């Protein structure tokens, strides 16, 4: 057990699984880097933010494959390799690049098992960076997990901390279905105690980071930390919050969300993905449909506006959910009075 960063936890998960199972291979743009370069070095980058550094050295060129910048072909190759005996972990450098290979994910990998009558297994993991907060602007800052959640046949994982990331990624690599594993790029340096050994965290099981009796807050990925900070502040004002980290948007732990809302009667959902048809909307519909009678206030979503992610810092800060906005949303649902019928 030692302090590890989000980046290290992910690196470790891949490393441990590649040691355990020779069928696990890694591919992506510059996952090593340096191939064919004039410096003659290998592992020049280890991934654009260094997440996969050192893996080429341990596992060699047969298992750590740098790709040309051709998402359609290599993501499709990862899908084809998955149904023919390998367990590929393919990296989409930024989730925003899914536009170049959506067919291979949406129409091929996601649907093989169903279309082929249950006779295909597609043990594919696609890792991608997501999230705003680095001034990376509109084409490098999206979240897009709702897009993948929308597609039957995919599993979608959004880890909220280093401990979570390692366990969920090992689970993803061992899972026999196609998994989209999204890493918030702003979190790579965050540290936490993480066991050295391999461990798994099951999909479809939410984590409660704290419990309180007044409001349920559901948050995803980096937003879980913000929700916890807001909950700390709210506690000093006498408002107790339960914070739910669903961990996976697909499968979604509906039971935990519904039970917590039944307890508190109030729901605030924090979701940094674009607001139309996002997870906050999906969960709001679920709760409105199945826990309507428990609600003592309208459901509030803390989400960005319906715009591309802006570049300037001041605008990006306005765009993203913040601790203050979460606090305000919780306070607003606390101030709603339930009127008795005459």
């Amino acid at each position, binding site marked *: 057990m030692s302090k590890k960063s989000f980046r290290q936890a992910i690196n470790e998960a891949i490393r441990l699984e590649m040691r355990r199972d020779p069928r696990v291979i890694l591919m992506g743009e510059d996952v090593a880097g340096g191939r064919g370069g004039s410096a003659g070095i290998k592992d020049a980058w280890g991934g654009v933010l260094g997440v996969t550094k050192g893996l080429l050295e341990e596992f060699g060129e047969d298992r750590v494959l740098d790709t040309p910048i051709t998402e359609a072909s*290599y993501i*499709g*190759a990862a899908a084809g390799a998955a149904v023919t005996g390998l367990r590929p972990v393919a990296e989409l450098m930024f989730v925003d690049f899914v536009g170049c290979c959506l067919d*291979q994910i949406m129409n091929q990998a996601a649907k093989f098992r*169903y*279309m082929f009558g249950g*006779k295909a297994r597609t043990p594919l993991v696609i890792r991608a960076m997501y999230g705003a907060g680095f001034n990376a602007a509109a084409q490098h800052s999206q979240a897009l997990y709702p897009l993948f959640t929308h597609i039957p046949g995919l599993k979608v994982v959004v880890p909220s901390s280093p401990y979570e990331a390692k366990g969920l990624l090992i689970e993803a690599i061992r899972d026999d279905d196609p998994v989209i594993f999204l890493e918030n790029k702003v979190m790579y340096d965050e540290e936490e105690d993480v066991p050295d050994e391999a461990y798994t965290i099951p999909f479809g099981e939410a984590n409660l980071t704290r419990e309180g009796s007044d409001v349920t807050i559901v948050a995803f990925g980096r937003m879980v930390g913000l929700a916890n900070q807001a909950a700390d502040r709210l506690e000093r004002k006498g408002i107790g919050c339960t914070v739910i980290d669903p961990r996976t948007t697909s499968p979604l732990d509906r039971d935990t969300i519904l039970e917590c809302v039944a307890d508190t009667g109030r729901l605030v959902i924090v979701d940094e993905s674009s607001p139309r048809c996002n997870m906050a909307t999906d969960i709001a519909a679920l709760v409105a449909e199945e826990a309507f009678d428990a609600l003592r206030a309208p459901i509030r979503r803390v989400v960005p506006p319906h715009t591309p992610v802006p570049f300037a810092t001041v605008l990006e800060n306005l765009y993203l959910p913040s601790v203050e906005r979460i606090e305000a949303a919780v306070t607003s649902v606390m101030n709603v009075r339930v009127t008795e019928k005459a």
Partner: protein
Amino acid sequence: MQIARETLLRSYRAMRTIRMFEERLHVEFATGEIPGFVHLYCGEEASGVGVCANLTDNDTIASTHRGHGHCIAKGVGVAGMMAEIYGRSTGVCRGKGGSMHIADLGCGMLGANGIVGGGPPLICGAALSHKTLRNGAVAVAFYGDGASNEGSTLESLNLASVWNLPAVFVVEDNGYGEATAASYACAGTQKARAAAFGMPYFECDGSDFFAVHQASAEVIAHARAGNGPAMLHVHLQRWYGHFEGDAMTYRAAGEVAEARRDHDCLKLFRERVTQAALLEETALDEIDAAVADEIESAVMQAKADPLPQEPDLLADVYVRY
């Protein structure tokens, strides 16, 4: 090259099966009983069969929306295919895929594909598996002149070359991508495209089984020997529309009739093997009769087989959810 008698008989049977399967579907589809779209392979039989005669069960193929021929050539069972096309639970995909998604991973058939250009990347993946697992197998992508322009296809030619994959790219050029001619839609030549990615290029007449067999033997040997990918450009014609129901208004009157008359691969095969005394007319007639029976049974069975039930709707989205 001398082809074994067994192979000749098997290949003839495969081509005859495809012909009768597709012609029968043409008739049955007109009754309105078959759901969805079908895309018929009549006229192209020698291509799929000629290539697959050089493959084993360990090798992988990927096909297109016009996939029945490749399925039969690779060994997918006729009864299961017919039931699938009729949407029965006894279908090879349990009625969940239909004509455009027929697959049988057990015999290396990665599926017909409803997305033009969907196959080549998957074949890069299958080839990568074969190379990594060192099992000596190759992966073959069948795609049309239309798909040859798709970004995913061109990327796949690049990727297979960069990674030196045991992949074979078979362009079944029937001159039409849906309703638009290849002469309009394809810039340059397939030959130049192969050269552009540094891979060997072979070409053959798709109505001649022997030509296809010979050329594909070379292409497949190249890949199997670890020399990287290669392209085979097969010239052929489809006798029916892009989909059943397509009136083919984009083709000149008499074009199809001429193809049927002068470029019927089955007629040409029969002429050649009997003239060279490789096979007897009687042996071929026997095959024709057997296949006719097989198709008839398959259709009757498919029409009588059970439909999928409500639990089938929710089954097999995931291995474990």
